[in-house]
């Protein structure tokens, strides 16, 4: 690993080591570019991942305080936890479930496809699908995605057998064990899946792709990476010309440090990324860095989500096997005659016993609640994952009262649901219920919206600088050496689990930064 001087203004500083930041770090360092990678969390390993669900949650989760408002469910059920994401080296790729569908061609043209929907701040992505597709193919090869490039599919688990039978009964055609960045056989230095069901606690075989044990060690091996874990960025500084010059951060001892930079890439996930830009306000950028258009933090998207649990008269034992190994793609279409725009996936899901009551049934207690848990052995599960609509006032702001351990304002998350969001969720719940009932479910239980695991669009790419924060390369419209390198840059959320798209955009951005540095434009 490299040791880069804090006074060295030649380095690229990347903030966050997840799908976006970790991939970008590898892509730049392998081209000979020096990178300082700041990560707020600590480093774990396959050996240190806890197999106790409660302990693993504490080990990996971003638990710094956040506040919330609006009419969505987490305000009530999880007031301090609007999002369930990670604070650790590797970011949320440590606890993600490995599902890697693509955003659809018509989804990246959201404004053109759906039209002028009242209340929604839809735009088209400033990228052609043909170009995005070529990076999807690169990303799928990098992650060894199942069912792509000749890789076999994930074998069907008990939970998937239930999903499959129900889906076929109601007439669905595109039902399979999902596109997964989880090896079914050893490959690329990663292990293979032994169907242990502990994807979210950190995959102890390394079958699941994570930057923690793929991109980051490879970046370290180039000799060009200086990874600093336990280091929380608190401010991005700029010069008189408006170009960024460095990053201020707190090291693992809480001391303030300052790293000079040639280029800064922000990949802190879609709540911390806009928070950091807002914290970096200055005389030149009084509303926050790269925020003259007032778009930083706006258009927060989180996907329509929710669990559908079915209980049966016979055992399922859904905890055995890979968590998200199943998908119904038939509803991933834009058919406004269903009563809403856009589409959704139904994806397989299971939760371990300690987690199910708190996460899967958030308000439950009493006899009725207990009777659902009594059927834990006979339970099957699905998760709704649908496209939500961006709205200007669904946004991340700095909380005026609550401060973090460094004395800085925490992020405040505001979400009011759009009527389209509610109509889609209702449709998905009805369809999921039909699937389980068609094969004799004793009971179907629906959960409210849970903390967002997919967070997007808060520093979005836009063709028009007044509509977003960054251009088609994630480069800030106003600040040429500042990049958005995570899901914050999505122009709209689409219906796909976001990691594959974050990786594809990071691969594309790395090509661009490399070209621009070579041409001395950066």
């Amino acid at each position: 690993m490299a040791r880069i001087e804090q006074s060295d203004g030649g380095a690229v500083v990347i903030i966050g080591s997840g799908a976006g930041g970790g991939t970008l770090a590898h892509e730049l360092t392998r081209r000979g570019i020096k990178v300082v990678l700041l990560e707020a969390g600590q480093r774990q390993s396959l050996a240190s991942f806890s197999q106790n669900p409660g302990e693993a949650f504490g080990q990996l989760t971003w638990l710094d305080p956040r506040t919330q408002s609006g009419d969505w469910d987490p305000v009530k059920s999880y007031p301090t936890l609007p999002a369930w994401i990670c604070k650790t080296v590797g970011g949320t790729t440590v606890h993600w479930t490995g599902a890697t569908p693509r955003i659809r061609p018509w989804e990246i043209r959201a404004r053109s496809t759906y039209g002028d929907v009242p209340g929604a701040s839809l735009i088209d992505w400033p990228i052609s699908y043909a170009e995005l597709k070529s990076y999807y193919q690169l990303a799928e090869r990098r992650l060894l995605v199942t069912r792509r490039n000749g890789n076999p599919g994930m074998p069907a688990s008990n939970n998937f057998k239930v999903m499959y039978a129900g889906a076929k009964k109601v007439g669905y055609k595109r039902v399979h064990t999902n596109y997964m960045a989880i090896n079914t056989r050893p490959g690329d230095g990663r292990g293979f899946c032994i169907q242990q069901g502990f994807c979210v606690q950190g995959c102890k075989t390394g079958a699941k792709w994570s930057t923690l044990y793929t991109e980051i060690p490879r970046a370290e091996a180039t000799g060009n990476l200086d990874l600093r874990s336990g280091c929380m960025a608190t401010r991005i500084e700029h010069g008189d010309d408006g170009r960024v010059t460095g990053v201020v951060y707190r090291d693992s001892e809480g001391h303030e440090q300052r790293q000079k930079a040639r280029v800064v890439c922000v990949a802190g996930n879609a709540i911390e990324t806009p928070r950091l830009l807002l914290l970096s306000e200055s005389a030149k950028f009084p509303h926050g860095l790269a925020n003259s258009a007032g778009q930083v933090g706006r258009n927060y998207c989180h996907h329509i989500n929710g669990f559908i649990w079915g209980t049966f008269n016979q055992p399922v034992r859904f905890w055995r096997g890979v968590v998200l190994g199943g998908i119904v793609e038939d509803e991933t279409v834009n058919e406004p005659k269903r009563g809403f725009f856009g589409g959704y996936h139904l994806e397989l899901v299971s939760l371990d016993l300690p987690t199910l009551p708190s996460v899967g049934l958030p308000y439950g207690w009493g006899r009725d609640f207990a009777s659902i848990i009594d059927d834990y052995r006979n339970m099957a599960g699905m998760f709704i994952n649908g496209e939500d609509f961006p709205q200007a006032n669904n946004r991340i702001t700095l909380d005026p009262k609550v401060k973090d351990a460094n004395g800085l304002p925490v992020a405040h998350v505001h979400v009011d649901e759009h009527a389209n969001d509610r109509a889609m969720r209702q449709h998905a719940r009805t369809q999921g219920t039909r699937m389980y009932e068609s094969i004799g479910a004793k009971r179907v239980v629906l959960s409210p919206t849970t903390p967002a695991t997919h967070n997007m669009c808060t520093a979005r790419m836009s063709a028009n600088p007044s509509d977003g924060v960054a251009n088609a390369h994630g480069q800030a419209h106003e600040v040429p050496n500042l990049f958005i390198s995570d899901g914050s840059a999505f122009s709209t959320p689409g219906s796909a689990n976001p990691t594959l798209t974050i990786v594809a955009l990071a691969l594309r951005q790395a090509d661009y930064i490399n070209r621009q540095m070579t041409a001395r434009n950066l």
Partner: protein
Amino acid sequence: MAATRTIAPHDKLEDAAYAIVIRAIDAAAAKDGSLRKQLEEGIAGLGAGFAKAPESARVEALKRVESSAFFQNLRGQTLLVLYSTPMAYAHFGYEGEAFSKGGYLFRGFNDLRWLPDVPLADGGPVPA
């Protein structure tokens, strides 16, 4: 005990599991004065006869305080600790972590027989 059994009533789950919940709550309260105060006041608020009251009355009493921080804390702790106990794992048939046993790949991840098997094209081969 009566409150935790009212929140998560599994009649055949032994008292030992609920006792672990109470020990965990007591331990947390011993370390945190404001939590201790919240619990003491909350329990006092349920009334002296709560523990011996019939279940329907206990449910009514808890419903009245359902939105309080006291109840949300008590519910959260009860569920988190109760369903993590070895007694609960055994009672509900949950097998827990499997990494140490080689996963469920050869231990029943696909042993469900009451529904048809999935065609290979929509699933995938089980590694040998």
